[in-house]
């Protein structure tokens, strides 16, 4: 589709903008393959994953490029990408990949790596949301939507952004509608197993990036 010679990067002569292959070896590839069991090197760049993905337009590194970048060892680019946060884990890519690459699992793994790394997440709201969800979970053992949203809004910067974008109004309106329909449970249920879950939660940090 992009066979057009006119459609190519400028600064062709700028040697420094050329990516160098091989300086990093394939350690990163081997590592991710080892950790996920995914067949990353089998990819033949057919782009079936990117064509299948419902959100490839919202990603800065497209699914097939994710695989290529891992092969090239471009760890920082990947961990700093929007892709790892935007991915819906809808598994379209994995399902259609002819080489059993396990694209979705790989992106999911990169997201975990990103969480444990010092690289600032490209989509902070999504990162914070996942974090908050787990916090709520360890508080009650179950997750209550009302309390989850409340906790999320208390996170630094979240409320400010929502007010600015008008998302807060939408959220309140929706909340009111749901409450009217009897679909909002205000008092959370607390599981007996909360203690065990908290122990798990603490252990989680034992997992190394």
């Amino acid at each position, binding site marked *: 589709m992009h066979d057009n010679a006119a*459609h190519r990067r400028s600064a062709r002569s700028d040697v420094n903008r050329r990516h160098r*292959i091989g300086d990093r070896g394939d350690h990163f590839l081997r590592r991710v393959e080892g950790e996920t069991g995914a067949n990353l090197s089998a990819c033949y760049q057919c782009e079936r994953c990117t064509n299948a993905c419902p959100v490839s337009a919202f990603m800065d590194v497209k699914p097939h490029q994710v695989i290529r970048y891992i092969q090239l060892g471009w760890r920082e680019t990947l961990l700093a990408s929007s892709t790892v946060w935007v991915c819906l884990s809808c598994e379209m890519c994995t399902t259609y990949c002819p080489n059993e690459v396990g694209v979705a699992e790989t992106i999911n793994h990169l997201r975990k790596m990103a969480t444990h790394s010092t690289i600032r997440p490209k989509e902070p709201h999504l990162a914070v949301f996942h974090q908050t969800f787990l916090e709520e979970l360890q508080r009650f053992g179950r997750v209550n939507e009302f309390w989850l949203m409340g906790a999320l809004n208390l996170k630094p910067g979240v409320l400010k952004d929502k007010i600015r974008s008008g998302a807060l109004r939408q959220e309140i309106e929706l909340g009111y509608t749901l409450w009217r329909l009897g679909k909002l449970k205000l008092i959370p249920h607390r599981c007996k197993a909360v203690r065990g879950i908290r122990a798990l939660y603490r252990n989680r940090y034992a997992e190394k990036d």
Partner: protein
Amino acid sequence: MTPDPRAHRTRRRPEGKVLVMGGGIQCALDLADTGFFVYLVDQAFTVGGTMACLDKTFPTNDCSTCMFSPKLVRVAGHPNIEILSNSQLLELEGEPGRFVAHIEKGPRYINLEKCVACGQCAEKCPKKVPDAFNGNLGLRKAAFVTFPQAVPLKYALDAENCLYLTRGRCGLCKKICPTDAVEFDQKPETMTLTVGAAVLSVGFEPALTPRHGEYGFGRYRNVITSLQYERLLSATGPFAGHLKRPSDGSTPRRVAWIQCVLSRDAARNRPFCSSVCCMHAAKQAVLTRSHLPETEAVIYFMDIRAHGKGFDDYVDRARYRHGVQYRRSMISQVYQDPENENLIIETFDHRLNRKTEEEFDLVVLSSGFQPPGSWRDLCTRLHLTVNPYGFATAPFDEPVATNRAGVFVCGGIESPKDIPETVVQAGTAAAEISILLSDARHTAVSQPKITADPTTDGEPRVGVFVCYCGSNIAGVVRIPEVLDRLRQMPEVAHAEDFMFTCSAETLDRLIEVIRKQHLNRIVVAACSPKTHESLFRDALRRAGLNPYLVTMANIRNQCSWVHPREPQQATEKSLSLILAAVRQAGYLEPLTDQRYLVTPAAMVVGGGISGMTAALTVADQGFGVHLVEQDQRLGGFAHSLTETLEGDSPQQLIRRLERRVLIHPNIDVHLNSRLTAHDGQVGAFRGVVEEAGQPEPVDYGAVIVATGGQAYEPDEHGYGKDDRVLTQVELARRIQADPDQVRGLQRVVMIQCIGSRNADFGYCSRVCCSAAMKNSISLKEANPDVQVVVLYRDLRTFGFKELYYLDARRRGVLFFRFIPEEPPRVKTNGTGKIIVDFTDRSSLHDFRVDADMVVLSAGIRPHEASGQLAGLLKLPLTPEGFFMEAHVKLQPMEFSSPGIYLAGLAHSPRFISESIAMAAGAAQQAIKVLCRNEITTSATVAEVDPDRCTACVICVRVCPFEAPFINTDGVSEIPPPKCRGCGICTAECPAQAITLKHSTDNQIEAQIKAIAAGELG
């Protein structure tokens, strides 16, 4: 049941009969023409396999039926072939040379002998069922014939659907059948046959079934397979050749092809490439664009695999001349618009950074292939081993062998392959059997009785037969109108029309009409006499007429094909052409053929793997061989090769072949030699071999051209200046010779398509992608940490070679695609790292690699000696310098000059195993000549009237075949076997001393007058 143990020891003469299971038409003919009796066993009601389903074939866009029908006719009429349709091979006992085959013949419910194919049963049958031959796109009856040219052309009842057979009601066909052929009480019969060998040639079928759910096949009506599309295009298909889509019969305005459906798909356990789909799609898109110029054709693909002779050229034409749109992108899913059943394909557009939806009226899935359903059971019964995907892949040096001696495979069941490769392998299998059973040649067949052709006289009574050629002619020319006008002409005694005049049954009907109507001059208004006249001559013979009393009017190639948009004028023109032929017919005279003896030896030019294989194939059957090699040793190009992708050793093969050739009593090896003169005609050539400067005359009946090829010597990318820039062949040798140096490499870049697929040399060299796979795997084996970067344009690891591409990737070899407009740039100053810059078309990033070594995949070129030989033998070459075969599809090993055959790299770039197959196959074509005692030549030759000849030698100079010479009487003489009947001398002779028989002056004048006089207004 257990075979007699002594049978091993007593060397009884083998059985001269062969069992060919499956389509296997070509193999059956190759065997039957070399003195063996063939049982052609087919599970279907008709023989022919997939080719019968095809509409046209690439690259010539020839009508498949037109190419195929003559073969079917020959099989049907061959005295040495017995067709057992609707039959299955149950078991095979015994040993090579003497097998007992148990066959079960299924009930057809219609007596083969009695059925006259009048079709009344099908007409009356009330039960309509989806027609599998038409990809279930149309309907047929439960009483049916598979397709109009079916062999045998006999009706059958479909037991699963016949109302009488399933429910005991109806029986209409039995009541109506005029010959009482319907037999509801037929039961399966078993029979045993003794045969010397067996060939399994069961072909393949599309792997995609609705069960897979891929791309909505079976769910959306306008998603079809490529084989179904073939039927939509075909004149005999469900829409009579008018392209319509299944859901509503409307003309599709946008058609998409999706490639690699269930191919190259490891996730669905089909990791291999089906080899033929790329060209199949290209052809279908071209045909679509030419049928319907308004219709868009879009092909979604990964790599274009145009690895055959001239295929790239075809794809380029599809793209740039026919406007077929190629999109390099694989789609995941096809969606349907519920309102109009149009199909939606979503792709990610990198330029716009968004998903785009494209709507199509029809989506064609290029489904991969798999062995037919019954194949696994057959393998179990016959104890055959197959590969994990069910194919009976053969070893590299025995390209048609199975694990059971005396049982051979050929065609699509060996591995997915296209038509020419299938024809080649059919020849190979015939050759193997012909060697195995050579003691029994001619023992089981009836020798054709050579009787003098009847001389026919009496007042001319002209019969005209007009062919529809499916819709090829009838789609343009108004045949009923033509017939009306013909019937009004006083000089036409009888006129009749046929759907396919060349079908076996139609020919029978034609003979009947000739006899009944007492016709003695025949005009067939159909296609080209070049391909079909001999067929009609045979028919005349069978009708008791002299075979030369037929002539043809080519109202297809010269009329309907060239005037598709002017039906009225085309109809007029057809009438003129036919009238001219009718007038000529009035002057046709009976002629007699000539005969001469055959020299039972072959001349093989080239002593490489192909040449040696061809020589052994001929010699092992008891015929003599002159093997002429330019070099001082045998082996040729393969000497430079170390190992094949599959791990076999060409060196060992060369040594094995060489040893056998040198001691073979039937082979005369001439080293340091060239063929310097060549004369004579098929079966009786005479030439001069110059061995170390010493000329020596030799006689031979056939020639096999196996001059081979040579490697392209690159001048790109610093090759020759920096010894770290090598070719793949050199790298392979280095890996063997200096493993330590290779182990020390850190970064290697391979660049594909060096000296191939460019303006200077258009062909793809076919083998280089595999060479890159082999070497990169070897490098990774030597040192798993080495970085190998392969820069390619299209990866062409077709067939099971795709598995090695997967292996290379899994080992971490990196593949980047470039486009020829922006080739990689290599910078080297002889020391330090070699810098390779390139742009990856997939990510659009610019890259730089500091390499220790750059490996060029240099292509294959024809051998430099081929030009000289082509001149000597008067053979055509392609612009690239390879020999040009008689017909790319059906005669890959033959030339249009009879008695000369083609094998190996001289034909086109190919793998060793393919060369071996071709060499044996070509040798078998030569055996067709050598195994005959004498040859009959055509009577349509030029004849000199010695009284008029002034010995001006113009004819000697103009004849392209060097036939005329000045004889001892001082006048020109044209030996009939050498004359090819081209008529050039006849036209040039100033004394009008030369007559071309069957095209005499008065005949031609009559034709010209008929057309020029404009009698038809």
